[in-house]
């Protein structure tokens, strides 16, 4: 799986940015990877995967597209995303709580018919989608091995109870004991995330914990290491550089 960041909300060089997105999308899908489209990652406003795919007539052959879906939507937009994904044959969703921003609305429990909870998290979204759409979608959830283990394990148990089909970790550098434990115990596919940017500090900023302080982080070496440590787990590649790394990945 290769993550493709969505173009941000702006008119500046819009055609160019959309074309570049389409090129990356096609390259990814043509090479046999699954294209993973983000949902306002880090709270930055970007176009939605389904609307860009529709506008640019990009198709999702053979389940090679996964769309991230978080809790920061209005009900009408949320339902539109699900219905459009189903129509466009996008059958894989990574359901996450997401990062909000002052500009983004947040789904309320009543929006998804959940009146017995105070707030909507990924668990409530998973339950709703499974209930409303049956087996239309393969549903995935995130596992953050950097969070307090007890809390994260309990959250994962609730996600499993909500009917997820696969789990994706946060970026792993080398190996991580919580991911090892999950690999050994999980009965559904576990995707191990690889951080493909040389800027490792960015990862620390994203997750809120210091990961590594090395100055010469080599993403491709780290990916090799992940293949050795987790040979049976498929990989989810974040922040791939399409100019310098994509062809190398394709060769492999």
């Amino acid at each position: 799986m290769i993550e493709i960041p969505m173009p941000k909300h702006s008119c500046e060089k819009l055609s160019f940015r959309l074309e570049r997105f389409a090129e990356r999308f096609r390259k990814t899908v043509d090479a046999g990877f699954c294209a993973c489209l983000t949902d306002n990652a880090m709270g930055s406003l970007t176009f939605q995967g389904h609307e860009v795919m529709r506008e640019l007539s990009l198709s999702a052959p053979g389940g090679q597209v996964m769309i991230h879906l978080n809790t920061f939507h209005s009900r009408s937009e949320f339902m539109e995303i699900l219905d459009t994904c189903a129509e466009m044959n996008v059958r894989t969703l990574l359901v996450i709580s997401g990062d909000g921003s002052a500009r983004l609305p947040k789904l309320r429990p009543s929006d998804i018919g959940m009146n017995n909870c105070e707030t909507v998290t990924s668990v409530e979204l998973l339950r709703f989608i499974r209930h409303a759409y049956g087996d239309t979608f393969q549903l995935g959830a995130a596992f953050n091995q950097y969070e307090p283990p007890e809390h994260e394990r309990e959250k994962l148990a609730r996600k499993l109870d909500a009917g997820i089909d696969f789990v994706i970790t946060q970026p792993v550098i080398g190996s991580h004991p919580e991911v090892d434990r999950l690999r050994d115990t999980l009965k559904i596919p576990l995707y191990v995330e690889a951080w493909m940017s040389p800027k490792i500090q960015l990862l620390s900023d994203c997750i809120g914990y210091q990961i590594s302080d090395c100055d010469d982080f080599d993403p491709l070496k780290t990916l090799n290491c992940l293949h050795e440590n987790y040979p049976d787990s498929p990989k989810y590649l974040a922040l791939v550089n399409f100019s310098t790394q994509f062809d190398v990945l394709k060769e492999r």
Partner: protein
Amino acid sequence: MKIAVCIKQVPMASDVKTDPVTKQLIREGIESVMNPFDYYALESAIRIREENGAEVIALSMGPPKAEAVLREAVAMGADRAILLSDRRFAGSDTWATSYILKQALLKIGVVDLVICGKQALDGDTAQIAPGIAAQLNCVQATGVGEISLSGSGLVVKRLKDRGYDRLRLSLPAVLAVNKGVNVPRVPRLKGYLKAAEAQMTVWNADDIGADYSLIGLNGSPTRVVSTEMVQLRRRDTKIFTGTAGDAGRYLMSVLSLKGVL
């Protein structure tokens, strides 16, 4: 009905820096965004149009790059946008800016309603809406938390420290809206595609018939005498979701993991 919405491009709040010598905001190299309060003003205008029919005109005074926020306004739903841009506008205080905006409003023609955000994030004065009303010599309401058209005028709820006033206003009127007035829509790709192609009207001082003695530093009765930088403490923020119990347990775990407990 014509509704003008005044929009300002401001530096991204997290990036704001001040020149230690001139005491002015450093705008070069800083990401600029639409003043957050202006989204509420724009949404108010669009909702009035959707319910009653109107033309919504986004209006901004600023350098050429301020065109970006006007295009965003069109993406959100404004019918057209006008940029007031001229080097002679530089250094205008809120009174001179109100005069420039008033001149543009007169050039647009009969504008029934002017809506502004409560204040701009950079200057924080909240003086533009009252300034325009004074310049136009028309009624105004600030701190507006609810708007409805009523007969040939408006009824607005004006929020106060304790409670609110309900006011009936005749048109034309100027409003400054608060954040709670609505939930602004987030523009979609189709809106941005339309906005990218939209024709942008740019007016300079001559186009709006401005009196040079009333614009820029010359036309500004106020001066920034001194400014002081406030040193903010660095803070890490983490938002805990889930139930109150879950969030509490999570908070304890995180504090423990970070060695605070």
